[in-house]
């Protein structure tokens, strides 16, 4: 069965689709102008004795393919590539593709009073890292600043960084930082943290701190600012996955053995 729909209408529909990235007003103008052209041509051809359908088809053939601008073609190509890249990325990431930190805190065990972290904290055992500020500054008192801990010393044992994510998940990162070292935490680095698509695990959290006594640091790098700053990278440990944050934090359940975190990944660095 032959398709007897108007060739001009069919052409305009196709053209409208090809012009989808064109600004709406411009697209309407082009379509209106082309429609007028095709109908005028078809009318002339009918005047020469052609039938309606044949005249419209001939007018469309004579008109040819409307040249879509190069910029539009580039925009289409870029859009298609972006969609393809997004599709490929999401295919490799079954979990939540993007999450943001909605709450970050550092919890610690030990004596609440005289705790250097407590100086900066409203809560005796927890410091809330403000997410809105550019950076959080944790002041250390005079005594802790004077102390020079040795390689095996961890001033505040069982410190845990807890991150609560927008998708409801919570991650705990064991931490052992010498008292005077954690003066600044750049939360922006924490907040820009994403899921690792390939490994389906959280990517390392980076905290920027001052001084160099960070015993369980994954990596210590030279500061970019020229100040005595180091960057520590923490990885979530499976043993912490079931824990909830303070209050009621069961510190005695933290996976440790003889002063070490039990995870093999942590032993060498924690040992100092």
């Amino acid at each position, binding site marked *: 069965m032959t398709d007897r729909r108007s060739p001009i209408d069919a052409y305009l529909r196709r053209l409208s689709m090809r012009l989808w990235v064109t600004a709406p007003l411009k697209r309407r103008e082009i379509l209106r102008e*082309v429609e*007028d*052209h095709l109908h005028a041509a078809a009318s002339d051809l009918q005047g020469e004795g052609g039938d309606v359908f044949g005249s419209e088809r001939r007018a469309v053939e004579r*008109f040819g393919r409307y*040249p879509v601008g190069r910029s539009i073609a580039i925009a289409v190509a870029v859009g298609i590539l972006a969609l393809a890249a997004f599709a490929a990325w999401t295919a490799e990431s079954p979990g939540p593709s993007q999450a943001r930190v909605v709450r970050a805190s550092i919890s610690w065990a030990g004596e609440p009073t005289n705790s250097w972290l407590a100086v900066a904290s409203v809560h005796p055992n927890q410091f809330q890292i403000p997410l809105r500020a550019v950076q959080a500054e944790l002041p250390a008192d005079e005594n802790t600043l004077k102390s020079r801990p040795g390689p095996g010393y961890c001033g505040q044992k069982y410190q845990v960084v807890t991150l609560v994510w927008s998708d409801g998940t919570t991650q705990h990162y064991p931490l052992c930082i010498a008292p005077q070292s954690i003066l600044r935490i750049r939360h922006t680095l924490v907040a820009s943290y994403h899921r690792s698509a390939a490994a389906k695990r959280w990517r390392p959290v980076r905290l920027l701190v001052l001084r160099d006594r960070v015993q369980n640091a994954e990596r210590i790098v030279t500061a970019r600012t020229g100040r005595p700053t180091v960057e520590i990278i923490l990885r979530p440990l499976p043993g912490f996955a079931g824990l909830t944050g303070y209050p009621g934090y069961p510190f005695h359940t933290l996976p440790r053995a003889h002063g070490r975190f039990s995870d093999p990944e942590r032993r060498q660095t924690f040992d100092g």
Partner: protein
Amino acid sequence: MPLISGYGVLVSGEPLKGHLDLLILATLRGRPAHGYAIAQRLAESSSGVFDLGESTLYPALHRLQRRGLLTSNWVEASGRQRRVYRLTPAGINALAGQRKDWERFQGGVQATLEAMG
């Protein structure tokens, strides 16, 4: 590339596109017209030598309008909206300049061909 037809040589493609602006400006001199009429005039005035894909006319018209050489307005015709183009003063000047350039070029080619026998 020229196409050979039963009616003679048809000029199409890049050679024609290179002179399309001049041809459009010349077609509109003193006579505003819509796209289809411009295509008709080009075909008639060239005695069918120019094999212009009619759709290629519109990007050229829009480009000339962006350059300020043409202006357009919408009118009602046969129950449809029709866009009518006309030359601006800048378009008239451009036409004069491009025409001189073309005549100089044409004269140079002609002189060369004659010199070569």
